[in-house]
């Protein structure tokens, strides 16, 4: 019934880091394309988990369907690769059934925000203790490069050959409006900062969402004339974002059109499983 005990905090230099501790043997190379950002994010996630001090048995990693959603197959936890868009619903079942598990959801922008958008907002609303890592590459990678709900307007994709006309979602805005109690953004480029942000998300009690900008060089990159994965990281992740810590110090023209990085929202409202235990189960038993 009780939530995972807050593990002891150990400070250590995170690299070089022994990833093998958390990787399943003989599963690499992963299926991701050369230069795909998903691998960079995965590494930050593993370092953050290590820092959190949870044991491998305490952690459950759940995903939907997509390139990003292949993550659980590589990592040595309780892992579940579910259906496209439904990762959060499966995860909600696991968490509510066994609140002592630390459940981390790995999902793509398509998985979380297209087909899975409803589960995303309802998860945030309930504030159930799930850590949701959205790998936002602005495209459907797995199916070969169709536009996603985060594809910037005007961009090319296999289904927007004349340029996308749809305004992209801001996953952080959505998470906040729907009630998530921890909302942050990171990028694959800012990998140490990302590690810290994910760690903070894991340690938070309640729904924590981290929107992670990373690159799909194979589809988004090629179709939108980026020269390389590096080029994408520089343009979209380095130059396309600004840290919340710096935003006040910068002139407006340096901020305009950029995504904010860092912890964007945090409040301490009651977590769902705890509420269930204290408000529902207690009352029910009393009756």
């Amino acid at each position, binding site marked *: 019934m009780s939530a995972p005990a807050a593990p002891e905090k150990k400070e250590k230099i995170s690299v070089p880091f022994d*990833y093998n501790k958390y990787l399943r043997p003989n599963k690499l190379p992963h299926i991701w394309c050369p230069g795909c950002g998903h*691998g960079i994010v995965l590494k930050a996630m593993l370092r953050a988990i290590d820092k959190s001090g949870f044991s491998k048995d305490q952690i459950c990693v759940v995903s939907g369907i997509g390139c990003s959603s292949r993550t659980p197959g590589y990592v040595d936890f309780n892992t579940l690769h579910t259906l496209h868009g439904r990762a959060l619903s499966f995860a909600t079942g696991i968490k509510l059934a066994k609140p002592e598990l630390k459940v981390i959801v790995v999902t793509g922008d398509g998985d979380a925000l297209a087909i899975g958008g409803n589960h995303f907002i309802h998860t945030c609303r309930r504030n159930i203790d799930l850590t949701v890592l959205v790998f936002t590459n602005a495209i459907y990678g797995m199916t070969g490069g169709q536009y996603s709900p985060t594809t910037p307007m005007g961009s090319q994709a296999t289904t927007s050959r004349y340029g996308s006309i749809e305004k992209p979602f801001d996953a952080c805005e959505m998470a906040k409006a729907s009630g998530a109690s921890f909302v942050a953004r990171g990028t694959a*480029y800012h990998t140490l900062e990302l590690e810290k942000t994910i760690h903070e998300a894991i340690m938070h009690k309640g729904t924590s969402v981290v929107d992670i900008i990373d690159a799909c060089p194979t589809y988004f990159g090629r179709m939108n004339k980026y020269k390389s*994965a590096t080029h994408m990281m520089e343009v979209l992740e380095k130059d396309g974002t600004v840290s919340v810590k710096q935003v006040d110090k910068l002139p407006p023209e340096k901020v305009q059109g950029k995504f904010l990085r860092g912890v964007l929202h945090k409040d301490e409202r009651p977590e769902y499983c705890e509420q269930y235990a204290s408000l529902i189960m207690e009352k029910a038993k009393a009756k």
Partner: protein
Amino acid sequence: MAEAAAKKLPNIVINERLCKGCSICVDFCPTNVLEIRGSVVAVKDLAACTRCQLCDLRCPDFAIQVFD
């Protein structure tokens, strides 16, 4: 201390089986230590390595690590 470190060269471990030759580490290495040879990464100038770890941090494929 800087000199002492300079003496002992770092150990850049490359896993050629895993490297996909994306060139991210090459591009981000501030001191131009690495290069792509054939289809995988290789060390070009070990002495220039500052142990900044950026290659490891940004490699998506668990293919490169830098040890003392």
